[in-house]
């Protein structure tokens, strides 16, 4: 028993080392000056500096990138959950005309490559005057987040026995009161997981958010890739920006860590 544990620990250790090494290198870079990055090769910063981070916190074109990203990510999460909750309930509880086809059709939107939609989105949102607004990116991201949220929530709702609904209706609860007072608390962890996934996929996406924004709603991802192409390469600041994008993700993971495995299985374990 003891021996097997050690072998497992070794394998896990190696895997986590493989995952952490590139991230460590990014942090390492972000704490060096550009002279040091290009001049000497060292495993840790020789002259520790926070100047790269200060650039980001003091330059509006950098820190607005983060604010813009967070605004549209939150908008997207709220919209996605608001429409996905009733739909998931319908799919998990009732048979209705065309339900199976509808469900698969929803999923096909998750399978649509964003590259296919980049140009039509640009034209659609330009023509209705939403180009370069947060809501445009939030709506565009519902393309893949709504199907995913419906899928996850449906999986969680299937786990709640139908008898609970029936008992509540017999006790005189109306649909909306039942949904808010009884059903929602029962699938709270499912809602948390769905929110987590909407947050995650909206946060990591680059192509659509870059195509749909120019100045006012420019996302941090777009800011980073444009810096690369425009003004040569400022490795230190770029690394610092990268490190700062990892932090929100790490925080959210910590909060949902007990449900994350089930969530990745889309509630189907």
């Amino acid at each position, binding site marked *: 028993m003891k021996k097997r544990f050690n072998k497992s620990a070794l394998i896990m250790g190696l895997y986590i080392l493989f995952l952490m090494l590139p991230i460590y290198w990014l942090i390492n870079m972000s704490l060096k000056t550009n002279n040091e990055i290009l001049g000497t090769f060292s495993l840790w910063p020789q002259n520790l500096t926070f100047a790269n981070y200060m650039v980001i916190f003091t330059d509006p074109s950098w820190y607005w990138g983060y604010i813009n990203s967070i605004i549209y990510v939150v908008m997207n999460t709220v919209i996605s959950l608001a429409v996905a909750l009733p739909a998931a309930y319908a799919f998990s509880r009732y048979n209705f005309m065309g339900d199976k086809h509808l469900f698969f059709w929803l*999923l096909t939107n*998750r*399978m649509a*490559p964003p*590259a*296919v939609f980049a140009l039509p*989105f640009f034209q659609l949102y330009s023509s209705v005057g939403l180009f370069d607004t947060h809501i445009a990116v939030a709506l565009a991201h519902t393309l893949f987040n709504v199907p995913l949220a419906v899928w996850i929530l449906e999986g969680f709702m299937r786990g709640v026995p139908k008898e609970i609904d029936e008992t509540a209706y017999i006790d005189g609860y109306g649909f909306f009161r039942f949904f808010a007072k009884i059903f929602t608390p029962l699938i709270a962890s499912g809602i948390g997981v769905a929110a987590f996934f909407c947050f995650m996929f909206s946060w990591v996406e680059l192509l659509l958010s870059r195509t749909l924004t120019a100045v006012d709603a420019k996302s941090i991802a777009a800011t980073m890739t444009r810096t690369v192409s425009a003004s040569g390469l400022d490795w230190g600041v770029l690394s610092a920006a990268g490190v700062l*994008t990892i932090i929100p993700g790490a925080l959210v993971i910590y909060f949902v860590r007990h449900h994350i495995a089930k969530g990745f299985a889309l509630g189907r374990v």
Partner: protein
Amino acid sequence: MKTVNQKAWFLVLPVLLLVGFSAVIPLMTVVNYSVQDTFGNNVFYWVGLEWFEEILHSERMHNALGRQVIFTTIIMLIEIPLGIFISLHMPQKGVWASVCLVLIALPLLIPWNVVGTIWQIFGRIDIGLLGYSLNALGIDYNYVQNATAAWITIVIMDVWHWTSLVVLLCYAGLQSIPDAYYQAAKIDQASRWNVFRYIELPKMMGVLLIASLLRFMDSFMIYTEPFVLTGGGPGNVTTFLSIDLVKMAIGQFDLGPAAAFSLIYFLTILLISWVFYTIMTNIDKREGI
């Protein structure tokens, strides 16, 4: 059993309206472009299936598709077995389980362009740990100029980025196996391999299918990471379907061919995903969920 209730349509209506706006209208635009040509000034005329024929016979599309299929096959052959293997060695409970979960999930939450940046820096021969060490060992490695090195870097980057997804899914599957199964296996003196083959693997089938479906879809539409890391180069060797499509649609503004390309691309993914999905729902039904 579920009851039949047509009023359930009202609950689905908001989703339909939203997805109708954000998916159907743009898709119709694409269909519209795919059968028309223009000389500018917003004057379009009907060309029928010409663009489809052109794209289906174009070498550029064939090459991009070939690269895409090779890439998806390689990363799935690595990530699925590796993910199963790692998940079998995850600690089951306690503080370490939480720590491992958080650390393993971390790469999944990093914005895709930052994943590209991380590997761009990590692999560079002058400032990156990987590139510098390999060259110090006398291995000729430079992902900017060497096609093989670029491919290896992209594959390793994808394994780094997404193996954790397979691990987490398998881990969730393993957690759902009751202890009694293992005790029975112990009484029968089953070998480690037999426990895996007859208890763990069947229980993981469902989540493994979800993992394969997700990995297939996402790797088939990969754009951001190779775009940041290599920009499709050196030359064209890492230009996958999405990169090629964006070049065609937004770079060169060839609306007709790009639209035809889009539809063929989308339908290919749909077809393969539909096969996965059908197998998946059949398994769900057999288990009576």
